[in-house]
């Protein structure tokens, strides 16, 4: 099952769903995060199933909605991807193969080249604060198995605001194996990043994220089971 959180993505959602069907060959569920445009209608027209949230709860909350529904349906594997067309659906199979084969519980799609100077600094700081060394910790392009889905449907996961380092810390604490898989990503087709937009938003995001990372940092040296792949 492919879960796509979407907020006002009418311009791209149709193409993203069509590509996801073609390359991932899985049912596609769009979680409409209280959009005020035609995102829901475009998603339905493209053949996706839609979960409509009554109001906006943020990208991570929307993603978790999809995960909770997948858990309820007893789905074994889920791929999460963005609705803005940045994630190349052709990479979905690589991510999925990693978790289906049992090599990891979570496959984290990474694309370091997308990192602007500011983003790279942010990633480095997140790594230092959390003690976790991930190449692209803010990537929402992930595949996960039932164990990871269950871990991410917990109330503790509902306390998180973003699908970045907080989610990774939660997965590591649940002793799940995370594998970083290089994937292809495209430039954003419309709109702009909700986080890396203005300095004020970036500052607020970083303060919250770094505080969370420091607060949740594991005191014991207990590095996660983590693999890095070099093939896309």
């Amino acid at each position, binding site marked *: 099952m492919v879960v796509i959180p979407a907020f006002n993505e009418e311009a791209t959602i149709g193409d993203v769903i069509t590509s996801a069907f073609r390359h991932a060959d899985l049912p596609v569920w769009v979680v409409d995060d209280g959009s005020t445009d035609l995102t829901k209608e475009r998603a339905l027209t493209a053949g996706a199933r839609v979960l409509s949230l*009554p109001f906006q709860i943020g990208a991570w*909350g929307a993603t*978790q909605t999809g995960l*909770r*529904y997948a858990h309820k349906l007893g789905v074994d594997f889920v791929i999460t991807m963005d609705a803005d067309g940045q994630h190349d659906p052709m990479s979905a199979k690589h991510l999925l193969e990693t978790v289906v084969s049992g090599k990891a519980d979570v496959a984290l799609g990474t694309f370091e080249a997308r990192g602007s100077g500011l983003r790279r600094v942010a990633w480095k700081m997140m790594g230092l604060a959390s003690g976790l060394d991930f190449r692209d910790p803010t990537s929402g392009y992930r595949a996960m198995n039932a164990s990871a889905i269950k871990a991410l449907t917990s109330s503790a996961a*509902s306390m998180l605001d973003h699908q970045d380092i907080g989610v990774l810390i939660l997965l590591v604490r649940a002793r799940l194996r995370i594998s970083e898989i290089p994937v292809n990503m495209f430039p954003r087709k419309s709109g702009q990043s909700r986080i890396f937009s203005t300095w004020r938003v970036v500052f607020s995001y970083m303060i919250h994220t770094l505080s969370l990372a420091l607060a949740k940092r594991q005191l014991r040296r207990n590095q996660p089971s983590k693999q890095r792949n070099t093939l896309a």
Partner: protein
Amino acid sequence: MIQAVATLFGLSLSLVLLFLIRRDRLHISHGVTWGVAVLCFALLGFAPGLFDAIARELNIIYGPTLAISLAIAALVIKALLLDIECSKLRVKNQRLAQKLAMLESDLADHRNATNKATSSLG
């Protein structure tokens, strides 16, 4: 003068509390907490010597410092408890919204299935 202000404030606060509880604007559990605060103000107003005596025991030279420090500590604890409650409510609210979205989807599926069954019978 400070005694008069404390007494007046305590009396006003107790009246506001009573009004809010009677009009269902404040839950009784919170009312009890604020009732304790009112009692503290009443103590400060009616028995100012009490704080001075405790302050002397604690080697605090200026008695009102103890009252102010205790008030600040109580306010900080109350603010923290409020934030904890707010966090809990936020999680509950979010999970409720998620549940609603899931149930709506289930309902739509159920309606479609019922419509199909009805049309095949017809």
